[in-house]
């Protein structure tokens, strides 16, 4: 019984939040890794792209709420998501036409593109703050829990409850669907294959008649989808605050690099590695260990390896360890 209670506490406080956070990071990292693979630069504006997409989705969510539209138990934000994606796609295609295209034609060094993306980051950050302000916003509605802690306790008779929030369930479900669609697209469709060819060897791809502008456009469209979905899921799970989204840049990049930059499979693995490490290292294990260890060994302190404020340090430490021992990441990524 004690073992089961401990297991439930572990699932409730470590596994489920880690799984949801990992899925959010994975979708974010997929966007970063795709841009790196096709456009060959690290996009520092990705966090703010996510914020922008979420902002548009929030605006439509409020609109639908005012019109009385809803999805019943599911959050209205799902209904608004396609509009958020469309808005982000317009923004990204516009940015590409106005800004990135010039440097691509100049064949500028990747590091110049990174600096350009810093400028884009400033502008997007400014736009988001200008339009929606800097305060915390929650836009989750509908049913809050799939299983609430109390219902679980009544069902099983255990002391510990297992709560699964709707947002967490949605996150994992969406992540599976998104990843499946993305891999189907990259591996089975003509456009997807041409994208992979372009990523592997640009010159050869051009020689075989692949239109680079089309590949770039499709990439931005996919990135718009991924960034908005990641941003909205994160916002539903926690809350929306522009500065937090900017700070997500570090764990997202860590995920993409740990998995191997430019490798989609790696981005997903990296997302979960980073998320679970963050959660396990900053979680106070007292409760779980109290159940699992014999009474004489039960801990007095919190058994928290690091305070939650150091979660950046965790992503960072893992990043460094992986880079030192496997410079191309867990899955073989590109190295330029």
């Amino acid at each position, binding site marked *: 019984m004690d073992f089961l209670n401990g297991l439930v506490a572990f699932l409730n406080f470590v596994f489920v939040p880690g799984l949801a956070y990992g899925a959010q990071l994975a979708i974010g990292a997929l966007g970063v890794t795709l841009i790196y693979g096709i456009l060959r630069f690290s996009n520092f504006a990705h966090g703010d792209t996510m914020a922008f997409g979420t902002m548009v989705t929030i605006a439509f969510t409020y609109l639908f709420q005012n019109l009385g539209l809803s999805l019943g138990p599911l959050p209205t934000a799902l209904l608004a998501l396609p509009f958020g994606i469309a808005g982000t796609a317009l923004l990204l295609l516009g940015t590409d036409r106005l800004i990135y295209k010039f440097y691509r034609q100049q064949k500028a060094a990747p590091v110049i593109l*990174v600096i350009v993306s810093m400028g884009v980051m*400033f502008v997007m950050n400014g736009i988001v703050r200008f339009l929606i*302000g800097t305060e915390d916003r929650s836009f989750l509605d509908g049913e809050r829990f799939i299983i609430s802690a109390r219902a679980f306790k009544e069902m099983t008779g255990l002391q510990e409850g297992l709560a699964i929030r709707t947002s967490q369930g949605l996150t994992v479900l969406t992540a599976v669907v998104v990843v499946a669609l993305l891999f189907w697209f990259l591996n089975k469709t003509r456009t997807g294959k041409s994208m992979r060819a372009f990523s592997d060897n640009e010159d050869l791809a051009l020689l075989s008649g692949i239109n680079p502008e089309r590949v770039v456009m499709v990439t931005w469209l996919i990135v718009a989808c991924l960034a908005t979905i990641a941003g909205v899921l994160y916002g539903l799970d926690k809350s929306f605050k522009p500065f937090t989204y900017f700070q997500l840049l570090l764990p997202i990049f860590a995920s993409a690099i740990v998995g191997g930059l430019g490798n989609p499979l790696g981005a997903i693995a990296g997302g979960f590695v980073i998320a679970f490490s963050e959660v396990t290292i900053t979680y106070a294990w007292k409760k779980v260990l109290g159940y699992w260890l014999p009474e004489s060994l039960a801990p007095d302190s919190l058994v928290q390896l690091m305070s939650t404020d150091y979660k950046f340090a965790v992503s960072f430490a893992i990043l460094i360890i992986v880079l030192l021992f496997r410079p191309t990441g867990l899955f073989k990524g590109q190295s330029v």
Partner: protein
Amino acid sequence: MTVNIRNIALFSIVGLLIVGTGLVQGWNSALLILNMGLISAIMALGVNLQWGFAGLFNIGVMGFVALGGLASVLISMPPTGEAWSGGGLRVLLGLALGAGTIAAAILTQKRMQGRARNWATLAVLVGGFFLFRFVFDSAVGAIESVDPASTGYLGGLNLPVLIAWPVGGLFAAGAAWVIGKTALGLRSDYLAIATLGIAEIIIAVLKNEDWLSRGVKNVIGIPRPVPYEVDLQQDAGFIERAASFGLDPTTASTLYVKFLYGILFAIVLIILLWLAQKALNSPWGRMMRAIRDNETAAEAMGKDVTARHLQIFILGSAICGIAGAMMTTLDGQLTPGTYQPLRFTFLVWVMVIVGGSGNNFGAVLGGFLIWFLWIQVEPAGRALMDLVTSGMSDGYWLKDHLQASAAHMRLLTMGVVLLLVLRFSPRGLIPEK
């Protein structure tokens, strides 16, 4: 020759902008902009050393600046005797244990062979971690319980705050050594992410380690290198001199203090600029640029690229640390909550790119100009919004929204300036020769 005239003209324009601020908004604001402009110029010099000379992509400027700020606390604040006797030595012992663990782990990894190696390293790390936490946690508890409302930290060495400036540089240099040792061999993108991460970690440490920096409770009242306004206002000689300029003592004292800071900062800037110019034109500077332009060729000529990179990474970071110590001295307080990457890292990058990377004078010019814009865009944005909304009736939601959002014009403007310069004048206002 024409280049020189152009440069002088550019600097004069920035000078005129600041003087104009003095005439329109008062000399106090103008001197504030000038002082922070001087500090920004020093930060830009540091980044320019790394990016302009060596092509190193460091986006962790904020961390080095914050370390400089920590130095001014640790040097100039009075020590908290009770905290030292309560847990001071134990904290130091704990830190030594932590450092020893890492050293032992590295040694194990290097010396041992075979399959046991990684397990042994892991065992050393885990064992060391628990030992470290055991010693460290109790000491921290003891220190932080000493009068938490006003102290609750170890305090400093009670030395003149000017000593903190070079010490801030040393702190930043130490951190840069550690980062450089691990991350400089990697690609440029990875170095960028590594520096971004370390900066966040440094800020997290300053925010959370109350025994060291009081965390978010802030350290206020850091001693000054210049006299206090209140003392000046009571000084008969000073009042007399102020009167001879036709100023009342209060205004005169605030201006005088800011002016003294300005002189101090200008001295530091001139020394660093002189050194940077010397370095740029020396064989060492030429070697650096050769490495930047073609690493492979430079390596083939027998240059130790990694070592040179490490060297310039440390130097540039040290300059940012000095600037950070100066800034905290000017503020008179350390507020870890106010360090934000957009303001302290990316803004400095805008300064370097706009001013002209690879040119020290360009970086300095960029520092002054962008800082001026950063300050003035906000009132300008507000004025613009007032103009735009002047036709709308009061209380109309759009008017309220636009006026409340005017403060966010800053980031937008900086981004647009950066993108325009990158597109139309990628080498900056004063290009590299």
